[in-house]
């Protein structure tokens, strides 16, 4: 699976309050959440981000709360993939559960610049910066999580498994 988009670059330790402030958590509509994604960190983000764009960050992206509203807001805003030096644990799980791929690549996180056009191959973990004409590799996505992405997230994955098991019985 290949993705391509413009890069939005952020720093280290971007927390879930920055991704989606708690004041918007009195509801859970993805479209509403998307309107406020990153609004304190980068005003105007949600109106300028294009479908397929890629988010790039330094270490520990998504630290803080367990709110799934964070990856949900980014995904609904159009973000197709996040590349970072490292991710906070719950954010990592949540993203794959929602079918939003994450890639860990310290080199890419450092070298890729804000606004670059980047292509990502999820199968191989290769990241290609089209603007700089440079290639980077990311830690390969574990097979189980690749399966989650192929199925579109944990829910469709479990639904599929339920169907398979009822067929068998």
């Amino acid at each position, binding site marked *: 699976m290949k993705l391509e988009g413009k890069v939005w670059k952020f720093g280290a*330790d971007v*927390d879930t*309050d*920055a991704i989606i*402030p*708690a*004041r918007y*958590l*009195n*509801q*859970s509509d993805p479209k509403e959440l998307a309107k406020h994604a990153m609004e*304190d960190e980068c005003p105007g983000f949600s109106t300028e981000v294009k479908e397929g764009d890629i988010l790039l960050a330094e*270490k*520990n992206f998504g*630290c*803080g*709360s*367990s*709110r*799934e*509203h964070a*990856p*949900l807001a980014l995904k609904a805003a159009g973000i197709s993939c996040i590349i970072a030096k*490292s991710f*906070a*644990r*719950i954010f990592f*799980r*949540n993203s794959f*559960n*929602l079918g939003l791929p994450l890639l860990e690549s310290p080199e890419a996180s450092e070298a890729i610049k804000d606004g670059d056009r980047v292509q990502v191959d999820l199968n191989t973990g290769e990241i290609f910066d089209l603007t700089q004409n440079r290639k980077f590799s990311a830690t390969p996505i*574990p097979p*189980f999580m690749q399966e989650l992405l192929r199925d579109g*997230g*944990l*829910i469709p994955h*479990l*639904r599929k498994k*339920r169907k398979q098991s009822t067929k068998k019985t």
Partner: protein
Amino acid sequence: MKTKHPMTITEKILAAHSGKKAVVPGELIDVRIDLALANDITAPLAIQAFREIGAEKVFNRNRVVLVPDHFTPAKDIPSAEQCKLLREFAKAQRLAHYFEVGQCGIEHVLLPEKGLVLPGEAVIGADSHTCTYGGLGAFSTGVGSTDLGAAMATGRLWLKVPESIKLIYHGKLNPWVSGKDLILATIGDIGVDGALYQAMEFCGETIRKLPMSGRFTMANMAIEAGGKNGIIEPDEITLKFLKPRAKRPYKIYRSDQNAHYANAREYDVSKLHPQVALPHIPSNVKDVRECGKIEIDQVVIGSCTNGHLDDLRVAGRILKGKKIAPSLRLIIIPATQEIYWQALKEGLFEIFLSAGAAISTPTCGPCLGGYMGVLAAGERALATTNRNFRGRMGHVESEVFLSGPAVAAASAIKGRICHPEEVVRK
């Protein structure tokens, strides 16, 4: 019995819950869950996930707990709608543990208080501070709503066995130094990703003397160092806490002497003074005496970190017979209804009210910038909560400082961040 595979307490609990003799860090396992928890923010998405899977019944109506605590009593119409979803789901599923306003409290203080989480158990919650229950020797960790929705249906969750790190504390605590200061100092030392994906095992003679409230506070903030869970081996103090509360049998696990740790750090706490985390990250920690003159507009004493009865008692000792600075608001929020009652009976409310404090019904409220004390632009708060990210308590140009209840109460009197000794002798 000598084991061939020495394990940490975390590994033992995970092995027992995945039907294995032994587990090793990095292993992906399918874990049987003893309890699954969600709140008014995370449950609506979890319920949606539960339905989308096609599940009809929760795996066990006694082991799924819903606590509407973040924006309750409902702060606005959308919050009320979210709470209604929880209420209807709890009713339809005949959940044994749904807590309505009036019997409710902040989830992570409420569950141990009600005896719903016990040593040796595997607990997950759609809330990052679910790691709190490690304070009594359980494996507990936060997950997102989709994971929780799936676990409500299946009673299971896939997990990667974390590496463990050992944090050893020696020495006697100075006056006014508490579990909060220990954990703040630790996060200051290792950083907000210092224990990323790892189990933080707290031990040493200082921990053995720490009351349950302090143990919960420490395990609670494991997530602030990126930890998967925080954990403390149960002892006499744990058993005493559990005696009137536990309603089902439980098992105590201890780490093997030769268990493997990815890292170990030792702290001599005898010279430790109260700690403060400065904006905008919990690892930006300083000794309170090195903070300089920081004037504050609001003090909040409460949250799942420091809304325990012990915390309110500490605040009471400092505020007794005193008045808060006229320039400042002090908001005190007992974490649960039971704590609220007890504080009232002990005369703490009289102390707080005479000092000029506002006392709120149990809620997360201001901790996450929800309501009941949200900050305006340029305002500065000192809170006993656990996160001070930019905009956490309100306007993105406001600031949050974190401390234990002693520093918070003393600072409310002075109007600036100060050592409790400036206000009262112990």
